[in-house]
Structures are given as C-alpha cells and as structure tokens.
C-alpha cells in the first residue's frame, strides 16, 4: 500500500529541513522515494497547513520493570482517580502517575510519541521489563541495562581485571538483557548501601570493594565507547537530590576523561547550597559546563507540580528521601546482588520552596543549554511528572510569557532565587523536533527513527499549528506508526505492537566461563535462565526485536 502525505510543513532536523512544505510517501511501513507518476496512490492525506515531524522519542521514561510495577501496585488510590475506560479501539486500564502498560502505549501515541526507552532495566529483572514493555502497545521501546552496583562487575574492578574483560561483560549484559544501552545509577552506591554506607561521593571507596564511583564511571564509559555502542553511558550520578550536588555533577563530567557520557535527569543533580535555606540553583554552572563539554549530553528530568511517584534504582537516595514521600509510603529493595530499587510517591507543590526552585532549575537548564542536540526533553517519567505533561512542558519552553505567568505563581522565596524570568529564549519548532526526535534517535542509536528520510520507519506525527503549543502537542491530527494510522485527532484508532530496539555488539564468549561459575556459586538462578531471548519478547505476537547497528570495536584495548 502506498500512502501520500501531501503538502505538510516538515520539520526534519536530521536532514536540516526546517519547515519546508513537501510530500512524504510511505510504503510497507517505510518512508520511500517519490514514486513514478504511473503508480497508484492508495491513500492520500491532505496535510496542507499542518506541521509534520517524525514520531517523538522519549529517551528516558520508566515504563517497564520491577520498580514501575511496584509503583503501580502501591498506588491504587492514584489509579482510582484516573480510570481509562474501554473504547472501540482500546482496552481499559488506568493511569496517571504510574499508568498500566496498555494505557501507557495509548497515551504516548496520542501525544505523537512512537518510542520510549526504559532507562533502568535491571539485568536480573530484564525479562519482566520486556514482558511489560511488550504489553505496551503501539510505541517502540528498548531498555538501558543498569550495571555498576552489581557484584560481578565490582568484583572485576576490585580484581583490576583489564578493560577487555569489562567490555566483554558489558557486551554480554547487553545481549543477555536485550538492551540498547548501559546505565549506571549512583555508581557503586546501590552496592555500598547494602554495606550500610549512607552516601557515596565520586572519590569515596565502597568499604567492601575499595572501588570508587569515579572508577566505575571510567571503566563503563570506556567500555561503551570501545564496544561501538551508539548510546553513551547513561549516568544517574551520585548524590541525587542532595543540596550542593552540582559539584558532584561537574566533577562527574570531568571524570569520564573525554569519553561520551549522558547525564540523566540532570535537574536533580544541579543544586547549590546558597541562600538562607542552603538550597539554590546550580543551573547556570551546569549549562555552562554542558556548553563546553561536547562529549556530554543530558536530559533534564523536569519536575511539574502535582502528584506523582518516584521510582529509582537508587535505593540509597530513595531510602534517604522516603520520609518526604506523599502519601507517606515507600517500597525499598535490595535486589539479587545486582541492584536495588526505591519507590516513593511524591507530590510537588508550587508553594513549596524546594519544589518551586526545582521547577525553575529544570527550565533554566533547558534554556541556558545552547545545543538542542545534546539536551533532551524528559520529566524522568514518573519521577519529575507523568509523561502526559509533556505538551505543557513544551509550551513552557516555547512560550516565554506563559512561562513567566507560571513563574509568577511560585513560592516567592523560590522566585527570588531564580533567574528564569530574565531568560528570553523560546524554543522553535525546529529545536523541539531536534530534542524530541532527531537528537533523541541519534543519542539512543536508532538509525531508522527520528527522521523522515527515505528508508526511515514511517513513524510520523502531524499537528495543527497552534500558538497554544500545549494544545498543539497534546492532540496531533494524525500519528502513523510504521506507516499505519494509529491516532486520529488525538485518539487511538488502531492498536499495533511496536518493536523492541536492541544492540548486539561483538564480544568474546569466553566471559561466560567466569559468569557460569559466578552464577553457580553465588546466584539463585541459572545463567542460561538469566539470559532473555529475542523469541521470548516476540511471544504472544507482541512485536519484534530490532537490532540496531553498533559500530564495532573501537580502539580495542590491548
């Protein structure tokens, strides 16, 4: 079937197209060349006057896996207020802070998003993460395997094993957990907490392994680079949420010694200690450093006001925060010599000094960071806010007067501590398209997504231009997923199952000898059962596994 999308105003930053009126052709789920005149167009959409972009990509969203499901499980009161009723196209579900999988897929698609990446896929829990994501319809997904506090890796570092061995382990993890990237959370800190360490600074040793977070970061950034994986090491730094952590974050940028690194939800890591309340914005310093260090990218993790739930592998910090939760409950876990998790419901309030300043800090980072290819639009769903608030966030970025109106409602002490109202910048549609499409695809390593060039998967979103950007981005006219019309006027009209993106770098399978011994001695599961097969993801007809290209070994260490 040949589909023609006629006359839309196209924003495709991957091809430097900034609002050019053009036609797009789609066949068998892909964007194709303009066919010859003799070919019949099976279906045509008149998009004159409409804004056309690739489907949006959320490069950091907690949509599947143990802690997300714990968040769902522990919040019946949040679900009760937001039932998702059965429609002709959609099954029912629920969802606000921690939506059900089905509802998650529908709601993303309805906002024009066609992919989302679970950033904290604990390898031991990878099967569950994928099972959940495979039950998340329409959108493509993938995960970043979380290591760095796992005992196997820390034993390797403590034993000073060479970088090649570490690279092999990292590659093995990517295969075994069907992941597309590697993440580290509070490097070494989750492990240290199991030994009753309550904080871990960049150069502080784990009392058991005598390994520092700096060493963890260095070996992992290098492993990811040398394996040729597109997505740089995804780093949730030490000291999340701690006033003064801006210093840790700046040091972390330097610690990776020029290797590519992605600092996630950087807003939570940009706090100073100035002012009467010893809490201030470190946004300017962070943005300046981001502008300078071209090897560093970041997503913001914007907070927005209202009820949500924080879910993190960082149980050291979540334990410390659990007393601030609202409603007051929390689930914390030590997990399988692999990781941990902490789930704490949270309510951000605009009249709360800290929350109001967090809000301003996030926006300051967005607006002071110059290169939209290296800064990404996230709320760290659901930690800063549910992903359904993205249209609102886009409006905050694109509309200065709206932003300043919101700012004026904040806690007055927080207003006094922020420079936000003095920032003139407004994001353009082109920049939004970079942040949420082209840049995100490039960062994650999705070669056929995030752009509208020939050969790309036909994930396309069509909007009606509207000065109210929140209204515009909340309700696309059309969303095509792999060439199929899945959303019309902001409503799902057809449910498809997206694919799972992975990366499978080459590695020396000899590593399995050590791993098998480790599993047999210390684990409670067999190594073979630890590994998730692609076939399992495709079970029940829930989509396919796509292996994205990795560049092959780079500068393999002798």
């Amino acid at each position, binding site marked *: 079937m040949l589909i023609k999308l006629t006359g839309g105003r196209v924003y495709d930053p991957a091809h430097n197209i900034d609002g050019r009126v053009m036609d797009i052709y789609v066949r068998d789920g892909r964007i194709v060349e303009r066919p010859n005149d003799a070919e019949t167009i099976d279906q045509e959409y008149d998009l004159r006057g409409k804004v056309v972009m690739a489907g949006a990509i959320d490069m950091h969203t907690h949509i599947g896996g143990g802690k997300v*499901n714990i968040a769902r499980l522990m919040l019946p009161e949040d679900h009760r207020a937001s039932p998702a009723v059965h429609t002709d196209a959609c099954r*029912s579900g629920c969802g606000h802070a921690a939506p059900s999988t089905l509802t998650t897929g529908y709601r993303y698609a309805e906002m024009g998003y066609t992919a989302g990446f679970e950033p904290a896929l604990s390898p031991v*829990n990878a099967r569950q993460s994928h099972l959940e994501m495979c039950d998340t319809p329409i959108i493509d997904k993938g995960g970043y395997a979380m290591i760095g506090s796992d005992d196997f890796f820390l034993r390797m570092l403590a034993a000073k094993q060479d970088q090649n061995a570490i690279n092999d382990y990292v590659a093995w993890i990517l295969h075994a957990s069907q992941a597309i990237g590697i993440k580290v959370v509070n490097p070494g800190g989750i492990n240290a907490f*199991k030994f009753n360490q309550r904080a871990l600074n960049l150069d502080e040793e784990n009392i058991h392994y005598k390994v520092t977070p700096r060493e963890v970061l260095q070996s992992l950034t290098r492993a990811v680079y040398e394996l040729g994986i597109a997505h740089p090491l995804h780093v949730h730094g030490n000291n999340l949420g701690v006033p003064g952590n801006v210093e840790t974050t700046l040091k972390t940028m330097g610690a990776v010694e020029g290797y590519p690194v992605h600092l996630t939800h950087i807003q939570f890591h940009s706090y100073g200690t100035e002012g009467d309340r010893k809490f201030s914005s470190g946004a300017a310093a962070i943005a300046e450093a981001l502008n300078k260090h071209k090897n560093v990218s970041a997503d913001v993790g914007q907070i927005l006001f209202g009820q949500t739930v924080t879910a993190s592998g960082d149980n050291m910090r979540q334990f410390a925060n659990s007393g601030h939760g609202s409603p007051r409950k929390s689930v*914390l876990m*030590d997990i*399988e010599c692999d990781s941990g998790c902490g789930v704490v419901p949270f309510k951000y309030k605009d009249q709360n000094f800290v929350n109001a300043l967090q809000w301003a800090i996030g926006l300051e980072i967005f607006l002071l960071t110059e290169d939209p290819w290296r800064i990404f639009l996230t709320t760290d769903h659901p930690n800063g806010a549910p992903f359904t608030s993205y249209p609102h966030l886009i409006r905050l970025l694109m509309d200065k007067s709206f932003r300043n109106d919101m700012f004026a409602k904040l806690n007055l002490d927080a207003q006094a501590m922020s420079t936000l109202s003095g920032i003139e910048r407004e994001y353009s549609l082109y920049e939004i398209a970079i942040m949420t499409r082209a840049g995100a695809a490039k960062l994650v390593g999705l070669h056929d997504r995030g752009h509208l060039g020939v050969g790309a998967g036909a994930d396309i979103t069509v909007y009606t231009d509207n000065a109210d950007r929140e209204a515009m981005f909340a309700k696309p006219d059309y969303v095509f997923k792999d060439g199929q019309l899945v959303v019309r006027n902001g409503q799902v009209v057809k449910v498809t199952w997206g694919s799972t993106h992975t990366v499978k770098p080459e590695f020396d399978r000899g590593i399995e000898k050590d791993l098998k011994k480790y599993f047999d001695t*210390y684990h409670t599961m*067999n190594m073979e059962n630890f590994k998730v097969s692609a*076939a399992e993801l495709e079970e029940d007809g829930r989509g396919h596994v796509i292996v994205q290209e990795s560049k092959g070994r780079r500068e393999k260490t002798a």
Partner: protein
Amino acid sequence: MPDQGMDLEELNSFRMENMTQSTNFPAGTIEAVAFPGEGLLSDDLVISRDSDGNLALQNQACSKTTAFFERPRTPSSPQIAGKPTELGAAIAKVVELFSQSRHPLISGLATDVYGMRAVMNLAETAGATIDHMNSKSSMKNLLVIQNSGWYVTTLSEVKNRVDLLLVIGTDVVSYFPRFFDRVIWNKEAMFTDNTDAREIVYLGGRDLNTAPGTSPSGRKPDVLPCDLDRIPEVLAALRAIISGKPFLATEVAGIATADLEKLAERLKAAKYSVIAWTGSALDFPHAELSIQTITGIVEHLNKTTRSAGLPLSGNDGDVTAYNVSTWISGYPFRSSYRRGYPDYDPYHYETSALLAEGEVDALIWINSFNPERVPPASKTPTVVIGHPAMQFEQPPAVFIPIAIPGLEASGAQFRSDSSVTLPLKKLRATELPTLGDVLSAIEAALKAA
C-alpha cells in the same frame, strides 16, 4: 548435549496454526529446569525424558517437585458435566455460560505470565472479576505494600549477605522445602567467610520443623515458640522494644521479655538481618497488620544498620498473577472489569465471599500446577480449565484440560521475591492446548456473540 526443547519462536508460530502443541521430543536430558508451581522457582533441576515423554528428576529436590514432573500421564479430554466432549463444544458451553452471566468470576489463576495475559484479555472482554486461589495469603502482603510499603530483599541477597535470619511463625520448609539448602547453608557466599555461623531464630508458632535451621556443623537455631494467634502481640512487643519504648510486661504469650530484648539486641548488632515470613503460615485474621509490624521493625533497624524483610510466596503462580494483573490493569487480583474499567476491592472481590453471597453467577477456575486445587464448592456454574489430572467429586459444568506451563508448554514465571522472572520450558509433547489458546478462543467467541 542438553536439549533446550523447541525454541520459542518455532513454538509460537506452531501454536498460531494449531490449537495443540504436539511435536517430537526425543529422549534426552534437560538442564536448568525450574519448578513453576513453587515460589522459590529453583531452576537447578535436571530432568531426563524417555522417548514416550515420561520425565524423571535427576536431582535431590523435594516431593512436590518430584510429583510435578513425574506424575504419570493420564489421558484427559474436555468434559461437559463430567462427560467427554470435543474442545470446540466445551468452549461453546463456556461462552454460553459467560455471555449470560451478570457477574462472572475468573479465579484460581494458577498459571504463568502468558496464561495471565490471556486471563486479563478475557476478563476485560467478559467484564469479569479476577481472584487467585492463594489470594488469602498473598493479599496480606499486598495490603502492606499499598498501605505503608516496606523494605524487602531477594533470594541471592539472602544467600550472600544474611548474618541473622529471623523467621516469623513458620518453619518455611513446609511451604518451601529447599529454602535453607538453597540460600542459608550454601557453602560459599560473597560476604560471609563462614555460612555455618549464620544465626537462625524462629519466633512464634508451635511444633515447627526447625531441623533445617540447624547449621551444617550442628549448631541449633534459637526457637521462641508461641501460639499462632499470639504472633501479633509478640511482634508488637518486639517492635516496641526495638524502638526503645518502655515495655512493662515480663512475658508475652509465654516468651520472656528478656528473650525478646536479647533478640532485639542481636538484630541491632547484625550487619544484614533478614526477617522472613510466609503469608500462608500467618493464618489468622488481619495478619497484614502483623506483617506491617514486621516491616516496622525492619524500618527501625535500618536507621542504624541494615535489615530487610523477606516475604515468601509465589506458590501456584500467585506472584505472577498479581504482577501481570498489575501492569495490565493497575491492580493486583481481587479486581474487576465489570464496570468497563479496572476496579479494585480486595474485601468484596474475594472468591469465597463472591460465591457465598451469590454475587457471581459463573466461575472459571484456572489451575495449572497442583491437580488437588479444585474450585471451592458452590452452586455457581463452574468451568475448570486446568491440570489434566484434576479429579472432581462433583463434575464441573465444563472441564478443559490444558498443557502445563513448564511441563508441556513454555512460559515465564515470577519468583517469590518478584524481582526474578524465569523462563519455563516445554519438556514434552502434548495434544492439549495452552491456557492462552483456550481463553483466546473463548474471548473471540464472546466478542462474536
């Protein structure tokens, strides 16, 4: 070479074409097999298969495991009112019952992830309420998660870290026979030179089988027994003592306060204490409040040292059932689609209450693992979809035998600690359909009706 069986993709495509899964399974040995009916999901089993598909366990495991894998195969076919029939006719009868139902219930739910996906789909289409056969015990834990939350740990952490294990009201082994062998008396551990030195304390209960708590060198565990129904009080006393409250009583339920004080000191001195319980063993009303007291003890201990709870559950796939239900609907079992959206009411959506008050008028009982788990007696028309060896005193309205996940069907199962999901292997051929096949067929027919 170990036989990995049919690969999943192959199997899946096969299933799509055919409602049964028969194929060739030559004689051989299969490794890394997990026992899907039990929450520990120990996957170190080695199983041999003869050319007829008879299985023999090669490990020392436990009687439940042996019974599961070595149960002789008996021919089984769908039945309507106890009389053999074709699968299609049986499904048609189910559809007839369910399409007329004003409030259908799907319970039992002893299955795996793939089975639960089909359950959720059917429940949504049929407007059904769902519950699990073990919900009486697992709900105690879920209510705590939903109320205060908790700090808990997982099996490998226990295996490598625990220095003091406190077990509440159970010997554990009655429910999880291999618990001590697998995670306490393991020879090697990453953070303990000598696992033999691990301290074991049993608190509450009577006449427990505490022999498995004796260390390999013969060191006996400490046992502080009390009647089961006094456990709430003993736990409250321990929590008060650990929190430093002035506690006046000199004994509680026959346990000397001095002994509780000693236990409190040991817990505070431990580097990584683990407090374990099983929902099933805490068989007294409102046990969730006692579990909340346990989690309060853990919370207090974590102010200065490290401690974690270990809720042991997951038999008959209950951890699987509530996880899948939660990600698809937002709620664990004891929820319902009757209103057109998921709705949760653990007090009212409970199988025996729903049957007793006649609230539900049709029941599908799903039971894959233990053929003895028959549906509760009731006047409600009942469909049983389950283990082919199930026997009934009163034949249900419809019985549909299915392929057992982890035996005759592939699958995925959650372990007790909910953090680990393991693949289940298809170990031999069967003519029987999977639960997913049957439920999808029922759902399709209901939609068409």
